C-alpha cells in the first residue's frame, strides 16, 4: 500500500523531479504569464459566441431560411458540435498552458513542454554550463504587463533555453545570475 502511494505521488506531482541530482533543491517553478491564459480564454469565448451571432444574422438577413422544417434542427446540431469542439480546443490550450513549465533548482534549469497530444519534451541545462542570461520584453502588452522572454545560453552558442512569455523576466534573470554565481562559488571553494 505504501509503495502504491509513493508511486502515485511520484507520478502525479508536478513539483517532483523524476531524476534529482544529489542535494538538489527546487527554487521555483515557472509557468507562462497568467495574461497568456486570459488572452486564450477571451479568444475562445469569442469563438463560442459565434453561433449566437450567426443565428441572429440568419434571422435578420434570411428569415425565410428558418421556416424550412429541417433547417433549425441542423443549425442546432451544428452549433452544438461546434461549441463542444471549441470547448475542447480551449481545454487543450489551457492544459498546454498548465503543463508547460520551467523548473529552476539550485543546480540546473529544467524545461518541460507538451508537444502535441502525447509528446512531452524535457530539456535541462546545468548552471556550470551557462554563459549568459538575457531578458527581453518586446511589444506593447509585454511592456505594460511586465512579461517577456528569458534566454539562457551556454558557451556553445547553439545551445539556448527559452523561458517564453513569463512574468517578470528581469527578476528571473537576476535569480538565475545569482544561482550561477552561488554555484561557481561552491564549485571553486576548497572542500
Amino acid at each position, binding site marked *: 500500500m505504501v509503495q502504491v502511494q509513493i508511486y502515485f505521488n511520484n507520478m502525479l506531482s508536478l513539483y517532483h523531479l523524476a531524476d534529482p541530482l544529489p542535494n538538489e533543491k527546487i527554487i521555483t517553478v515557472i509557468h507562462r504569464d497568467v495574461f497568456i491564459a486570459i488572452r486564450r480564454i477571451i479568444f475562445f469565448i469569442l469563438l463560442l459566441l459565434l453561433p449566437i451571432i450567426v443565428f441572429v444574422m440568419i434571422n435578420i438577413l434570411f428569415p425565410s431560411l428558418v421556416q424550412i422544417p429541417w433547417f433549425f434542427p441542423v443549425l442546432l446540431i451544428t452549433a452544438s458540435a461546434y*461549441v*463542444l*469542439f471549441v470547448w475542447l480546443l480551449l481545454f*487543450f490550450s489551457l492544459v498546454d498552458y498548465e503543463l508547460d513549465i520551467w523548473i529552476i533548482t539550485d543546480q540546473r534549469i529544467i524545461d518541460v513542454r507538451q508537444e502535441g497530444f502525447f509528446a512531452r519534451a524535457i530539456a535541462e541545462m546545468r548552471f556550470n554550463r551557462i554563459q549568459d542570461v538575457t531578458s527581453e520584453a518586446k511589444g506593447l502588452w509585454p511592456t505594460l504587463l511586465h512579461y517577456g522572454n528569458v534566454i539562457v545560453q551556454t558557451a556553445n552558442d547553439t545551445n539556448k533555453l527559452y523561458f517564453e512569455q513569463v512574468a517578470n523576466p528581469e527578476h528571473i534573470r537576476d535569480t538565475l545570475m545569482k544561482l550561477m554565481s552561488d554555484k561557481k562559488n561552491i564549485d571553486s571553494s576548497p572542500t
Partner: protein
Amino acid sequence: MTFSLVIFLYLYYAFLVVWAVLSLIGVYRLVRFGGRMFGTFFVGFIYLAGSMIIIFASYILLSQIDWTTQVSIFTHLGIFNNLNGSGSNLFQ
C-alpha cells in the same frame, strides 16, 4: 433528394464519440503530467462541468425535435431565388 433528418443525429453521435475520446486524452494528460495542483484541478473541473452543461443543454434542445422529418434539399433550392427577390415564394 429526400432523406431522414435522423442521419444528422447519427453524424452528431459519431462526432460525440470522437469528442469524448479526445476529452479523455486531454484529461489523461492533465492527470498524468499535471499533478495535484490547484490549477490542474481547476482546469479539469471547469472543463468537465462545462462539458456536462453543454451536453445537457444540447440534449434538452435536441430532444424536442421530430427526427422523422424528411429533408428535401432540392425542393428548397428555390429559396435562394426567393432570397434575391427573383424567384417564386417557396412557402406559398
